[in-house]
């Protein structure tokens, strides 16, 4: 009988019974459609090849284990497996993005060592200077708590021991210091961004 005329269902059942050439006919019959389907999603020949291979490995395992329910829908079932594997591929790639250094895109344009350039350094020193000047305008108690916390990196417990006030009072002074700093920023119309 001509292999073209044999239905998918017959080929599948022959394959389950051990007829290996039936698989070859099934693959050859659907390879182009399945391959194009995968390629239309991933746009990469190598990935398409991998997903195509994984799809048929899953098909082979399911058929050999006898877990396939024949409902005359072999191709939609294979397409569904491929679709799920494509989703898996994109999920994996989201966790571990792949950068292709091809064409105009250069990976080093988005990677930096974190160091500021000359302009950034200037702006940063200006910001530091402005903040220092505003801290000087704060009431003495608030200023001392803020300096100890932010510049000397002391805990509120250490600040309370150092100034002889309770931790709650130190926290309150810090809070008012920040509120007053915000007011000063608005008053002087200062922009504190780099």
């Amino acid at each position, binding site marked *: 009988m001509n292999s073209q005329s044999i239905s998918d269902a017959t080929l599948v059942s022959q394959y389950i019974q051990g007829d290996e050439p039936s698989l*070859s006919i099934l693959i050859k019959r659907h390879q182009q459609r399945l391959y194009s389907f995968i390629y239309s999603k991933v746009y990469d020949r190598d990935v398409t*090849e991998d997903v195509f291979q994984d799809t048929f490995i899953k098909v082979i395992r399911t058929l050999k284990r006898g877990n396939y329910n024949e409902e005359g829908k072999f191709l939609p079932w294979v397409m569904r497996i491929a679709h799920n594997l494509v989703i898996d591929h994109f999920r994996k790639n989201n966790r571990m993005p792949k950068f292709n250094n091809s064409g105009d895109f250069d990976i080093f344009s988005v990677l930096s060592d974190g160091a500021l350039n000359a302009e950034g350094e200037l702006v940063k020193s200006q910001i530091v200077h402005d903040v220092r000047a505003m801290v000087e305008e704060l009431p003495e108690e608030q200023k001392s708590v803020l300096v100890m916390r932010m510049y000397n990196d002391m805990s509120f417990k250490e600040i309370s021991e150092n100034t002889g006030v309770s931790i709650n009072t130190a926290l309150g002074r810090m809070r008012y210091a920040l509120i007053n700093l915000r007011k000063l920023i608005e008053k002087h119309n200062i922009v504190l961004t780099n």
Partner: protein
Amino acid sequence: MAKLYIENPSDSNTLKPKTETINFLLNYSKALNVSVYKGHKFESLIN
């Protein structure tokens, strides 16, 4: 008449898996053996 050195577009545009991939799948299928023991299925690759 000058020869035309043009790649056949019908060949280059066809989306098909590599022959190696197909051969791998067919060999994998031949090598895979599923045996059932006490209700459990075990897979083995006989190569």
